[in-house]
């Protein structure tokens, strides 16, 4: 993003053009502007002007009156569930308590000695997680008991979106 010559770097020019420099740095850049740097700034200025004009023309007829009217007439939205992190903690606590209880109940009801061959696998994927518990049946070696927990998470209000 920089030039090797004595010209001002593109990075500096861009920040100057975008008004992202401090007052001191702006003065410094202005004192160092040469003809070529001014041309680059003018080219940036021209591009900005073109894009603004183009966008203004495209947006000139924008009118969302009907949809906004409908929103105004709709009932106010109620508060959503707690934020994702807090909700996740609550879910995790509830899940842990449930899993512990189910495990204890399972072994309490069994008449034979408990098996230590239970296999637990947990898989976290985008948007949720799944946990699989597999246990051999001591009374019937050819059978296993499988329990699957799945939980899905959804970002409220803003769609899935993502990062550009």
């Amino acid at each position, binding site marked *: 993003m920089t030039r090797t010559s004595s010209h001002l770097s593109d990075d500096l020019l861009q920040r100057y053009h975008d008004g992202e420099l401090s007052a001191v740095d702006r003065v410094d850049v*202005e004192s160092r502007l040469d*003809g070529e740097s001014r041309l680059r700034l003018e080219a*940036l200025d021209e591009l900005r002007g*073109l*894009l603004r004009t183009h966008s203004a023309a495209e947006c000139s007829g924008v009118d969302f009156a009907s949809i906004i009217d409908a929103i*105004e007439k709709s009932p106010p939205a109620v508060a959503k569930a707690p934020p994702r992190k807090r909700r996740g903690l609550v879910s995790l606590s509830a899940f842990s308590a449930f899993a512990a209880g189910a495990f204890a109940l399972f072994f309490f009801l069994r008449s034979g000695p408990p098996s230590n061959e239970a296999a637990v696998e947990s898989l976290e994927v985008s948007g949720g997680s799944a946990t699989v518990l597999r246990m051999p049946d001591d009374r019937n070696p050819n059978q296993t008991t499988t329990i699957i927990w799945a939980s899905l998470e959804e970002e409220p209000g803003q769609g899935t979106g*993502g990062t550009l």
Partner: protein
Amino acid sequence: MQTPSTTSTVAAPPVAPDAAMDRADDAALVTRARSGDQAAFGKLLRKYERRVFSVANGILRNVDDARDVCQEAFWKAHNALASFDGQAQFFTWMYRITVNVAIDHLRKRRGERVEFDDARANGEDEGADPNGLSPRRLGFDPVRALEDRELREQLERALKELSPAHRAVLVLREVEGLAYQEMADVVGCSIGTIMSRLFHARKRMQSLLLAERGEVPVGVDA
């Protein structure tokens, strides 16, 4: 090629007029809206409808799709208003929702990933000016360009050549005048990434427009 003007003034930093008052107005409207005043929320939407559309259309480059995205974004904002903590500016929050809905829309429309690979996308301008930003102007008066159908079509073709992420930073900075930090908040990345994308987007646009005008970008042998 038209000779660049030597008398043109250097771009001044963007200054938002009455920005502080504007933010105070927004904050008051948000407070009223959160307490159930639907008219206040409607006022906010009317205030920003054009800008929200500008962002959506800037990313999608399709007016009909942009209208759909705006409507969805408005409803999402309405439904999520109670969770808006007010730490960010309302328009930043609204833009973020719009960008997210636009990304979802692109995914549905194209059936492909829209996540942005900076290294790959920034390599789009390989073969263009190896020295950086162009010192060449196209020689157009932006106001007169409104009436120049050919230029509008050239501009549209060039914009469609850019990646959605490059279009997003261009519209947020050049059209909407957001600061780097605000853009980073909206897009969900670092300021450094914003600056890099902006640089490459501008360079790419200059290169494409020069090519459209039959000019050879600086640094490329004819």
